[in-house]
């Protein structure tokens, strides 16, 4: 999931209007851009959709890191197509956020100066080719857990963006798993890469769902508004239950000595990730935070003359058309 610890905004609106709004949501109606909505709903959504969009954009970097080193032409094409999809997801989501009255450029500035966040997962490095498998399998896999229910979220444009995105994400997950299969059925070196990738990405993937429910302060309001559909712990459990048998099938060992099937609950018991590491990453001290933001800032700054040039040309054209009329 690409939105973590989204603070929901308090709302000071007319209680009658609020009740009517809540009733619409409870009936399963979609809220559309022109409808009345509480200020807190709007602001919370901007933060959540924005964080999700930024995650898609920054998420291009760890995978882009291997595009020039992909081992075959086909793998290169698949990876390029995937990263291109992620850019497309960013675009849909920025468009959804724009319907709430915030422009893409404003949101970009907030990402670049650190006012808005992106998912913690993209602050981890991709060190071997197996990481391209692990990211697709685990990271896109975790994203899907959260995004499938969001197809039913109350805000229309967001829900519709999710429908398009989810189709592609499940494709990414299958491709990631396919890379892992190849590695796990390959040479000793490839198997070693695959296990190493799982070792490094397991706990960071669990962190993607955000802190444990007992420490998650903002959930109740967001869940009532159907901006958040499940609790963090529910989704994390679902992810573990789905992923452990896949790891077994691959012949990999999940790096958690306390992981075991619990007959009574019908779920896996597992070790929580190190939440102090999670907080460090959120505060900018993950292995790649600086690198990621530097790369985004550099791309934005280096591209300024292009964006200005395109705008100047469009303006000249417009002026010429007006003059001709």
């Amino acid at each position, binding site marked *: 999931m690409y939105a973590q610890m989204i603070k929901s905004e308090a709302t000071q609106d007319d209680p009658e209007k609020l009740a009517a709004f809540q009733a619409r949501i409870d009936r399963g109606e979609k809220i559309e851009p022109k409808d009345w909505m509480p200020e807190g709903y709007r602001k919370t959504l901007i933060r959540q959709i924005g964080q999700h969009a930024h995650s898609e954009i920054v998420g291009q970097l760890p995978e882009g890191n291997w595009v020039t*080193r*992909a081992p075959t*032409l086909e793998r290169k*094409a698949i990876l390029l*197509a995937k990263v291109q999809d992620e850019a497309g997801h960013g675009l849909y989501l920025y468009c959804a956020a724009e319907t709430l009255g915030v422009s893409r450029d404003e949101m970009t500035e907030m990402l670049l100066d650190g006012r808005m966040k992106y998912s913690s997962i993209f602050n981890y490095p991709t060190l071997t080719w197996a990481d391209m498998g692990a990211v697709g399998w685990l990271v896109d896999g975790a994203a899907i857990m959260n995004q499938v229910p969001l197809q039913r979220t109350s805000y229309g444009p967001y829900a519709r963006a999710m429908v398009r995105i989810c189709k592609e994400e499940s494709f990414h997950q299958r491709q990631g798993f396919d890379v892992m299969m190849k590695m796990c059925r390959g040479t000793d070196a490839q198997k070693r890469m695959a296990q190493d990738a799982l070792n490094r990405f397991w706990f960071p993937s669990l962190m993607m769902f955000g802190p444990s429910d007992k420490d998650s302060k903002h959930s109740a309001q967001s869940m009532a508004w159907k901006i958040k559909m499940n609790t963090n712990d529910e989704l994390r459990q679902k992810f573990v239950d789905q992923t452990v048998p896949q790891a077994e099938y691959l012949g990999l060992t999940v790096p958690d000595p306390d992981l075991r099937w619990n007959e009574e609950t019908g779920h896996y018991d597992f070790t929580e990730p190190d939440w102090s590491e999670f907080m460090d990453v959120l505060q900018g001290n993950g292995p790649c935070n600086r690198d990621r933001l530097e790369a985004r800032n550099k791309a934005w700054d280096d591209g300024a003359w*292009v964006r200005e040039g395109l705008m100047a040309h469009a303006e000249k054209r417009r002026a010429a058309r007006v003059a001709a009329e």
Partner: protein
Amino acid sequence: MTRDAALFEFLCRMGDSTLVLGHRLSEWCGTAPALEEDIATANTALDLIGQTQMWLGLAAEVEGAGRSADDLAMRRDAWDFRNLLLVEQPNGDFGRTLMRSFLFDVWHRRMLERLTASSDPRVAAIAAKAVKEVAYHADRSAELVVALGDGTEESHRRMQDALDRLWPYTGEMTSDDEVDREMAEARIAPLPSELRPGWEEAVRATLTQATLTVPESAFAHRGGKNGARHSEHLGHMLTTMQWLQRAYPEATW
């Protein structure tokens, strides 16, 4: 040179040029000036890699030595590469990347249009598929060259710099050699020099609209398409691109 040997060379020229340019464009992944450019650049790179699979796949078939398209891409050294010098030039700023694409795309489109009538049906089939993609590349790069040439003072200056820098690499695209004459005789491919007038006309028309000045020098660097003398840049590109295949030769991916 036998006909098949010449055909192999020719197919490597096509496939290596799309491979090298596709790779160069993929170096932009995630860092283009705007999201739309990221998507479009990746898309072009994808098309070119797909075309590479077809050209080098056919090259491997014609060679008949049991090599695959991937073997050709990942296991040859620089001196066996047959791409145009133009496409191996480093990306530079976005303007130089764009100008390089534009100069190549105009040629590429014309070449493919002619190849759709190739006497070799395998070549004609690949060209028919690729030409649709490349027509789009060419339209898009021309449109952006016009916009940025005309845009601001800075964008104009950068585009003019890019043009001046890359112009000496354009002559190689339309120069003929023994391989080309063999292909032309067999009606497999046109003589590159026949493409020159159309290429120049189209390029000049766009550059005029872009308010850019075409360099006067007709000097042309050579050595890419016959592999005699690539630039220093190609080796570095291959070092990155081929690393996994070279480091783990027994692995399949």
